[in-house]
C-alpha cells in the first residue's frame, strides 16, 4: 500500500485530475440548488423526478436524461464564475458575438438578427403578421394606428460591428406603409429616432428602447392622433443606474457597461391588471369567494390587482426594465388624466411608452396578445368604443411573434 502511494506520487497529474473531478463532483452535488440565476435573468432547471413517463419518452426534451443533464448544467457549482471565465476566453479570441448577441463599439450590444423567422405554413412570419394586421384594420377602418419600432441596429448605426449583415428593415417598413395605408395610419419612427441618433435612445445591454427613445416616438404618435403631447414637457425623470439588461444576461460579458434607466414618477395612474376577462368567470369567482369556498391565496391569483404603473421593487434587481407596467400582462386598464379612450395592443416595447399616454387619455387599455385570455380584441373594441387603437411592436418581435393571429380571433376569419 505504501509502495502504491509512493508510485502514485510520481504522477502528480493523476492525483490532481482525480482529486479535481472527484472533489468537485462531491461538492457540486452537496451544495444547495438555486431557483434562479440573477446573472442570467432566468429560472434554473431543478432536479427532475424520475418517472416511467420521462424514462420512456421519445421526445428529446421530455426525456429524463435530458432533464437531468439540464439540471446538472444549470446547478453546476460556481456557474457564474465559469461563465465569466468563458467570457474572458471569448475576448481573447477577439470574438464580436456570443450567444446571439453582437458586440458593437463603446459597450453597445445588438440582438443578432440576420434572417427573418419562417412561418409554420411557409413564407416568413413577418409576412404572415402583416396579413394578420391587414385583416384586423380592414374590419376597423380609420380607427387603428400601427407603429413598428425599428431595432437598435437600424438607428444606432455608428456603433455597429464591422459589416454585420443585419436584416434591412427599411423595405419592410415601406411595404407596411403601403399595405396599411387605406384603413390605418402607419407610423415608422425610424427617421424620428435617427434625427436624435446621438442621444441615448437604446440601451447598451438591453434589447429595448430607452424612455427617451419612446418619448420621441410618442411625440410622433401624438401628432398623428391629434393629442397635445404636453405630458413629459418640463418634467424631470428619475434615473437609476446599474441596469444590466436582457442582452447582458445572454452574453454575461465580464466587462459590460451598465445602463441608466429613467422613468417619470409624475406620469402615473391607477392600473388594474385584470386576470379574468370573461364575465361569467368573474361572477363565479366572486360568488365562490364570498361564499367562503375559495381561499384568500386562490382568490388573489385570479382577482384583479390594482397597482401603480411602476414596480419599483424591480429597480433593485439587474433587469430593471421589468419595472414598467409590471411586465407583460394579458389585459390592464389604466386611469389617465386626459380625455377619451385608447386601446394599446403591444409587445414589451410599449411598457415604457404607455406612461406618456396617461396625460392624454382618461382610459388606457393595454393588451398583450401573448397572454390575453377570456375575450377577443374585437369584443373589447365593441364594448368600449375607443377613440384610438394603437398597435405598437418592435420590428424584431413583430417579425417573430406567432400570436398576432389572435387579432382576428372571433371575427369569423
Amino acid at each position, binding site marked *: 500500500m505504501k509502495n502504491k502511494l509512493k508510485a502514485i506520487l510520481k504522477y502528480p497529474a*493523476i492525483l490532481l485530475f482525480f482529486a479535481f473531478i472527484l472533489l468537485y463532483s462531491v461538492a457540486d452535488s452537496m451544495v444547495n440548488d438555486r431557483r434562479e440565476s440573477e446573472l442570467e435573468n432566468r429560472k434554473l432547471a431543478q432536479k427532475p423526478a424520475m418517472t416511467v413517463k420521462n424514462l420512456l419518452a421519445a421526445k428529446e426534451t421530455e426525456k429524463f436524461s435530458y432533464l437531468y443533464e439540464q439540471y446538472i448544467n444549470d446547478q453546476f457549482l460556481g456557474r457564474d464564475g465559469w461563465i465569466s*471565465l468563458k467570457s474572458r476566453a471569448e475576448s481573447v479570441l477577439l470574438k464580436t458575438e456570443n450567444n446571439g448577441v453582437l458586440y458593437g463599439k463603446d459597450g453597445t450590444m445588438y440582438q443578432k438578427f440576420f434572417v427573418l423567422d419562417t412561418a409554420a405554413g411557409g413564407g416568413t412570419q413577418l409576412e404572415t403578421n402583416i396579413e394578420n394586421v391587414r385583416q384586423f384594420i380592414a374590419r376597423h377602418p380609420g380607427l387603428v394606428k400601427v407603429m413598428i419600432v425599428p431595432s437598435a441596429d437600424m438607428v444606432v448605426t455608428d456603433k455597429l460591428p464591422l459589416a454585420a449583415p443585419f436584416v434591412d428593415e427599411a423595405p419592410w417598413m415601406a411595404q407596411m406603409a403601403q399595405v396599411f395605408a387605406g384603413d390605418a395610419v402607419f407610423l415608422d419612427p425610424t427617421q424620428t429616432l435617427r434625427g436624435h441618433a446621438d442621444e441615448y435612445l437604446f440601451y447598451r445591454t438591453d434589447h429595448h428602447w430607452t424612455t427617451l427613445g419612446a418619448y420621441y416616438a410618442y411625440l410622433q404618435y401624438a401628432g398623428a392622433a391629434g393629442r397635445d403631447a404636453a405630458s413629459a414637457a418640463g418634467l424631470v425623470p428619475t434615473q437609476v443606474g446599474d441596469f444590466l439588461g436582457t442582452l447582458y444576461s445572454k452574453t454575461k460579458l465580464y466587462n459590460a457597461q451598465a445602463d441608466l434607466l429613467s422613468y417619470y414618477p409624475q406620469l402615473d395612474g391607477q392600473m388594474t391588471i385584470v386576470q379574468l376577462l370573461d364575465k361569467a368567470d368573474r361572477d363565479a369567482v366572486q360568488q365562490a369567494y364570498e361564499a367562503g369556498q375559495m381561499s384568500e391565496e386562490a382568490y388573489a391569483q385570479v382577482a384583479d390587482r390594482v397597482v401603480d404603473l411602476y414596480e419599483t421593487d424591480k429597480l433593485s434587481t439587474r433587469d430593471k426594465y421589468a419595472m414598467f407596467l409590471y411586465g407583460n400582462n394579458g389585459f390592464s386598464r389604466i386611469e389617465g388624466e386626459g380625455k377619451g379612450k385608447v386601446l394599446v395592443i403591444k409587445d414589451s416595447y410599449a411598457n415604457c411608452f404607455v406612461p406618456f399616454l396617461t396625460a392624454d387619455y382618461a382610459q388606457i387599455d393595454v393588451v398583450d396578445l401573448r397572454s390575453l385570455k377570456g375575450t377577443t380584441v374585437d369584443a373589447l373594441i365593441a364594448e368600449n368604443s375607443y377613440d384610438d387603437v394603437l398597435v405598437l411592436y418592435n420590428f424584431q418581435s413583430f417579425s417573430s411573434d406567432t400570436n398576432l393571429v389572435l387579432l382576428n380571433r372571433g371575427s369569423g376569419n
Partner: protein
Amino acid sequence: MVFSSLLFIFRFLPIALAVYYLAPPRLKNLALFLISLFFYSWGEVRYFPVMAACILGNYLLALWLGRLQDRRRARRAVLVLVVVFNIGMLFFFKYSDFFISNLNALLGTSIPLLRLTLPLGISFYTFQTMSYTLDVYKGTVQPERNIIDLGAYVVMFPQLIAGPIVLYKDVAAQLKVKKGRYTLAGINEGIGLFILGLGKKVLLANNIGALWEDIKLLGYSSVSTPLAWLGLVAFTLQIYFDFSGYSTMAIGLGKMLGFNFPENFNLPYISRSITEFWRRWHMTLSGWFREYVYIPLGGNRRGLPRQIFNLFVVWTLTGFWHGANWNFLLWGFYYFVLLAVEKLFLYDKLQRGRVWPHLYALFFIVVGWGLFAVDSGMGDIAAFFSRLFWPQGGVSALYFARNYGVALLVGMLCSTPWPRRFYAWACKKSELLRILMLAAVLLVSVAYLVDSTYNPFIYFRF
C-alpha cells in the same frame, strides 16, 4: 451521454472509474460491461434490446463458426448469416426510410416511412462486432466463450458510439489480463489525451463550427462567394476537431482503463495526395473497409480494371456508411474518382512535387466537405456550389472573418504538426509545464461547457 459534458466529467467518469479500479481483478470485465451498458442506455433506454441482440447474436454465431471447424460449406452459410444479421440490423435502422422514400419517388407509391430513431453509435458498433465474427470465420481469432468478456468489448464505453473502430483482436489479449491491466504511466498519459481531446472538441470545433451554422441560417443561396469559401473552411476545421477530438478522448479513456486503441487521425490536412489523406483520416474506418471488403474482393491482385472496380465498391459503401442520403453517396463517389485518378497516373507525379501537392490535396478535401456538409438535398448542393465556383455577391464575408478570424487561425495552426511537437517537448521538458497546460485547457473547456449553446457531435448521426 457525450464525453464533452459536465454530466460525463463530473458524474459518470468519477463513479465509473472508481467502480472499475476498485473491482476485484476477475470482476473487472463485468464492471466495465455494466457501467458501459448504463452509459449506452442513458440517453435512450429503448435501444438497449438492439445492443443486447447484437452481442448475443454475434456471440452465438461465432461459437457456431468455431464448432464447424473444417466444414467449409456450412461455414460459408453461417458467414452469410453473420453478414445478413449485422448489416440487416444496420440497414433496418439506418437505411429503411431512404429506400422507401426513393422507391416512393420512383414508382409513385406512398409506402409510409418508418421514422425510426437511429440507435446511438449503431454504425460503429455493428462494424466492430462484425469484425469479431468475421475474424472468427477467417480463423485469425478464437471464438470467445465468456459472453461478459465479449460484451465488455462491444459496449466498452470509450469507443462505443463514435469510434475509433476498435477490432476485437486489438483488445482481446488485454481483456484477458485481469491483474495489472493498467499502469500508472498509462493512466497519466490517458488523462493528458482526454483533456487534449476535450479541448479540440470544445474550444476549437464548437468555436469554429458556429460559422457553418450561420451559413445554413442565412441560406446557401444568399451568401457571397468569399463567405461560401470561408464557411467551408470553417466546416473543414470543425469536422476534423470534432471527430478527432472525440477519438482522442476515447483513446485517452481507453488508456485509463488499460486498453490501447488504434490511432484514428494523423494530421490529415498535411497530406500531399488524396490517397495519403485517407491513410490519415478516420484510419480505423478505412482500415476496416480495406480488411473486410477491399482485400476479400481481391484488392489489387486481380489486375487494374478489377482494382478500380474494387475501389468503386469500397468508396460507394464508405460514402453510404456516413449517412442514408444522396449527398453522402456522391461524396463517396467523388473520392472514388480522385483515388482512381491518383492510382492511374497522378500519384507518382504528386510524390515528386513539393508545394503544389499540398494545395491540390487541400483543395479537393475542402470541396469534398462541401458535398458532405450540405445534406439537405441536391438543390441546396447545386445552390451552394454555384456560390463557390461562380463568383457573385451576397452576404459579405467581412463580418464573419472578423468574428471567427482568430479561432480559424488557431484551428489552422492546430492542423499542423507544430502543437503536437510542442506538447511532446513540454512532456519531456517538465511535468509541471505539462500539468499547467492541461489544467488550463481543462478549466477553460469546463467554462465553455457551463455556458454552451452549441455543442453538437457531427459524427453522432452516423
